């Protein structure tokens, strides 16, 4: 079973099925996986932290709130925090020449925020496909924990 995770939302699954996201641009997708329990989760995040938006109640929108929520959700489902690893996908900048120097691009800031919050929770990042100028699509296979990233004009890569 394949489930698409819309922006601002997160899903967890155990041992079977695929979590997928199509067309990640500046957004960042955080994939968490505990190999021991084969529990995994995916968060599709839009912004670094709630200061970027006037609606602070949407926790799934920002990396600083979505990642701790996803970790908690995995733990209550039976994952062991010490075994959870992370992979990051996204944070591209697609219209580089229109992004002014003073406002460093949001994709980059999303990546930075996700890395920082994962470090804070002692979750190692074992794979990344971030930055650059192209959007990405992701397939996270819960049966073996594999994450495959595809992107226009490039061949698929596993991270």
């Amino acid at each position: 079973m394949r489930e698409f995770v819309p922006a601002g939302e997160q899903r967890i699954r155990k041992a079977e099925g695929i979590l997928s996201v199509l067309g990640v641009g500046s957004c960042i997708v955080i994939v968490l996986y505990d190999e021991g329990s084969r529990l995994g989760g995916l968060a599709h995040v839009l912004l670094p932290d709630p200061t970027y938006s006037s609606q602070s109640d949407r926790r799934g929108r920002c990396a600083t709130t979505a990642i701790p929520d996803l970790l908690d959700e995995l733990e209550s489902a039976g994952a062991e925090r010490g075994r959870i690893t992370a992979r990051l996908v996204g944070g591209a900048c697609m219209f580089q020449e229109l992004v002014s120097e003073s406002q460093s691009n949001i994709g980059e800031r999303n990546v930075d925020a996700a890395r920082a919050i994962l470090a804070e929770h002692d979750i190692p990042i074992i794979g990344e496909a971030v930055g650059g100028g192209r959007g990405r699509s992701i397939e996270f296979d819960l049966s073996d924990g594999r994450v495959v990233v595809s992107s226009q004009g490039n061949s698929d890569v596993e991270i």
Partner: protein
Amino acid sequence: MKDTRGLEERQLDALKEVANIGAGHAATALSQLTNRRIMIDVPQVQICPIEEASSAVGSGSGVVAAVLMHVLGDLTGRSLLIFQKDCALQLSDMLLNREPGTTKVFAELEQSSLKETANILTGAYLSGLSDMLGLMLIPSVPSLAIDLCAAILSATYLNFGHDRSYVIILDTRFRFEPGDPGMSGHFVLLPDPSSLNVILKTVRLG
């Protein structure tokens, strides 16, 4: 004003009319450039949360060629010209005087011709608005991306929004006639929230 429910019916109608005038001018320009008949749909005005914005225009999973430009002057925001990938390839054939079906990839010349087309079409769109509203509008240089529509839309809203909570979308679909459904695209205007009020004030509905 968080969604279209916050706008009165007549304000929505006015925004649709604004989009219609702009898109009408752009369609005329595209028609003259390509010597084809161009049809435009009734514009859609949406104010939606950024989570939903990536699927607000067209089908998010299709590959498109999109040209983004900043709009500056009395009204600020962005314009996005979106061509379905097939449409962009066929358009390149027309613009570069090639046999139909010749263009297979977007190399430098094709990319440059698409950007130039966007310059012309956005210029026409904005001059339509300018005449109608009596505002001074200036487009920036264009930037092109060829990617999944969802990635392009979300990157646009996230990188350039001021308040990144919701997004205002004036979307007008156009298509070549006669033509297959793939020969279509969108003229999209994304006014900043403060500029929405500027538009509504100039049509005396703000």
